[in-house]
């Protein structure tokens, strides 16, 4: 027998779009971090903007908390709904308009990231932020997480490409933040909303900026016999004033996993690390920059340097990088995915420290990351059923995060806080700053019903203690 809430929601979206049975909800009990496993109370999947608004208003009338979810590829547990309503947005996948002359597109939140660039390619345009999950993740999720990606080194992250957002607040009010028709003329509410991890409301429509496809692209692969020399090559390129479109590092354990998988990209498996360097721009000057980068990486100790010019070879080189997390599935049944940022000059020291921690805790760290940004992803494959191994892995992760913070870095560059990084928030923000974040959240969602208990630790928000237990 469906609950009263399920019946009310079914009246809006149709009975087949409301899931309430345990077996049906299993799919939605994790996001991209499968070590977290919690069951929603029910899941509802509206198919149109009006249905989303009606659902949110129904939830508002009943004071029911909810969690918006895109494709569920997030890597911080942000889309977990622990005993509350999960609001799936992936059915809203229309590209509403492409205004090529103004370089703008209006999309629904469920549009898959890669599909947008595919749709705009005939106009010579593309959408720059390209998270590794871009063939699955949605623009709505990207907005919630302020998603990054390899090409954000040169072109910036999601927040730099969103012009306006129409959202339904938890109260049911619909509001357009930002100004697609000119300069923003008030507070930067788009800036506040992007990266709010679903805590400020539910995205209905996003206006994004499109960029011209570059005239020329060169992808280079350089391999090194030590991680340190690869890290020094990164510094040398950046210091020379060259801004590559992407500058990625993949270490040996990752290379081996990739090369043994169906995503094999032709990376040398005996190298300590490879760098994937992409340059783009006008044809006129690109070969000159390619030659400069080649010289710089050779001076830093590169063994070989390969340059791909044709799209097929470039795609193959990229495949190894973008599918690396998936390839790690070959190494062990479970994987801890990590995300931290350090100042670029600290890369060699921090990478050495991570290796020291890995040795001491007897774990294998697979580093695959955005080296140009200093955005690390030290991932650890392991067997979660082996309690001793699991506790060593958690010890290693705690120490790695501490090392990144001590180096002047931060606890997440692109995956978000969600629930996974909550324990680290106190380490980088003062109580007053966390309090300000709580206050900002309350501006958008005073009842704190949209994605409750994420991003800011409960104990840090004095006012949160006064929040009513908003469970149905």
């Amino acid at each position, binding site marked *: 027998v469906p609950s009263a809430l399920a019946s009310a929601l079914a009246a809006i979206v149709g009975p087949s779009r409301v899931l309430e049975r345990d077996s049906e909800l299993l799919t939605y009990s994790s996001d991209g971090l499968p070590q977290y496993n919690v069951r929603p109370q029910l899941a509802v999947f509206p198919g149109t903007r009006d249905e989303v608004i009606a659902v949110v208003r129904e939830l508002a009338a009943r004071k029911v908390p909810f969690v918006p979810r895109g494709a569920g590829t997030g890597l911080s547990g942000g889309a977990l709904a622990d005993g509350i309503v999960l609001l799936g947005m992936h059915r809203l996948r229309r590209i509403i308009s492409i205004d090529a002359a103004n370089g703008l597109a209006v999309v629904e939140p469920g549009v898959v990231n890669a599909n947008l660039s595919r749709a705009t390619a005939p106009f010579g345009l593309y959408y720059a932020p390209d998270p590794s999950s871009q063939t699955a993740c949605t623009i709505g999720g990207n907005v919630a997480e302020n998603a990054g990606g390899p090409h954000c080194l040169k072109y910036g992250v999601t927040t730099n490409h969103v012009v306006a957002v129409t959202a339904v607040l938890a109260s049911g009010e619909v509001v357009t933040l930002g100004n697609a028709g000119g300069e923003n003329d008030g507070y930067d509410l788009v800036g506040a909303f992007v990266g709010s991890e679903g805590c400020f409301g539910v995205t209905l429509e996003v206006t994004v900026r499109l960029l011209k496809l570059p005239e020329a692209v060169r992808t280079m692969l350089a391999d090194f016999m030590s991680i340190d020399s690869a890290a020094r090559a990164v510094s040398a390129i950046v210091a020379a004033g060259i801004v590559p479109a992407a500058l990625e590092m993949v270490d040996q354990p990752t290379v081996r996993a990739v090369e043994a998988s169906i995503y094999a990209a032709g990376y040398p498996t005996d190298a300590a690390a490879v760098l994937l360097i992409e340059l783009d721009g006008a044809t006129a000057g690109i070969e000159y920059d390619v030659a400069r980068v080649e010289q710089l990486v050779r001076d830093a100790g590169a063994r070989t340097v390969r340059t791909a010019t044709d799209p097929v070879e470039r795609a193959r080189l990229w495949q190894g990088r973008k599918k690396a997390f998936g390839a790690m599935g070959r190494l062990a049944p479970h994987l801890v995915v990590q995300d931290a940022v350090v100042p670029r000059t600290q890369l060699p020291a921090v990478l050495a420290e991570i290796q020291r921690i890995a040795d001491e805790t007897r774990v294998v760290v697979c580093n695959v990351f955005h080296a140009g940004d200093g955005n690390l992803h030290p991932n650890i494959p392991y067997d979660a059923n082996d309690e001793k191994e699991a506790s060593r892995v958690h010890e290693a992760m705690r120490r790695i995060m501490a090392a990144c913070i001590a180096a002047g870095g931060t606890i997440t560059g692109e995956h978000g806080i969600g629930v996974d990084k909550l324990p680290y928030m106190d380490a980088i923000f003062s109580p007053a700053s966390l309090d300000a974040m709580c206050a*900002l959240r309350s501006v958008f969602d005073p009842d704190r019903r949209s994605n409750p208990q994420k991003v800011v630790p409960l104990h840090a928000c004095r006012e949160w203690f006064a929040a009513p237990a908003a469970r149905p």
Partner: protein
Amino acid sequence: MTTMLDVGAGTAAIAARVCDAIDTRTPLRVVGAGTWLGGGLVADSARTPTETLSVREHAGIVDYVAGDFTITARAGTTLAEIAAVTARENQWLTLDPMGSDAGTLGATIATASAGPLATGFGGPRDIVLGLEAVTGRGAVIRGGGRVVKNVAGFDLTRLLTGAWGTLGIVTEVSVRLRARPECDETIAITIGASPADVAHVCASLQTWPFAPMAMELLSASLAQRVTGAATTVALIRISGNERDVRAQAAAVDMLGLRVPFDADVWTRYRSAEPTGACVFRLSAPRTRLPNLWEMATRIAAANDGAMYSATPARGVVRCILPQPDRANLSLGSANEATLIVEQAAGVAFPARPVDATIGQLERRLRDAFNPTGTLNPGVMVRTS
């Protein structure tokens, strides 16, 4: 394992001053170098506080590691001071707000003031990495950090960027730096003055396989002041390696004939408006720039000595009326454009309509961060 940064004596003193002001119900006007006092959207002059809190003395570089391409400085540090320090490492901060480099970093961020380089590098919201601020509750808060990529916590940094000190006083800022390009060349080209001519220039920009660092179109009246040539001029700044720049210059030269200019042409462009002038911007999607240009031409015809310029990449036209007391403004179809007033100079502009829910969010923001209205009352207020 905490690296939470200490609150410096300067910030503590500013926080103490704010707390005093809250207790004594003394509204404060927050200033840096004091060059943007006439701005802040529709400022309510009747409520302008008599007490000012200047952050100009709260200055100095806090942290600069050249290899990281980031710098952290206190709010009162001038852009000139930052330029001097970063130039030694062949780097620069690509923020060149209208006015001069005597302006402070804090005010540039607090007012989100952009200049010609925003065409190539984005504005303050794209360049700021983190900041420290004293809220209207007297609390010292930090958002973001010193690294170039950061999604930890809600984005207090962008919230305070462009909030004109109405939510908090920006006391320290971390920003991204760039390497000085190998070649940096400015070209001034004479172009036609009609909307069709402007449309042609805009169309060219879209077909070029490169993005100029800056591209501004100057009315003849403004060009005369900046370059000496009394003709409509496109001022274009290109960069890259030698080959890039040669190819870019060839493309730019297709637009028209070059006109000569001095080395300080950008400095002059940024500071062209006479003291006391009324300055405002109109913006729209970039394909409507010719319409905005036409509107500016009409306004200029009705106002003695008026000057204007356009930024094709951003769809912005900026108008300068040197004699605000005799301003003759009929913005006509301006409701199709977004109006932003930089310096009202006593000119009455139409009240800006605001969506009710946005108005509610803005009110709640002020209630949360500046509940007593101590900081910059009358600024960022939608209706007077």
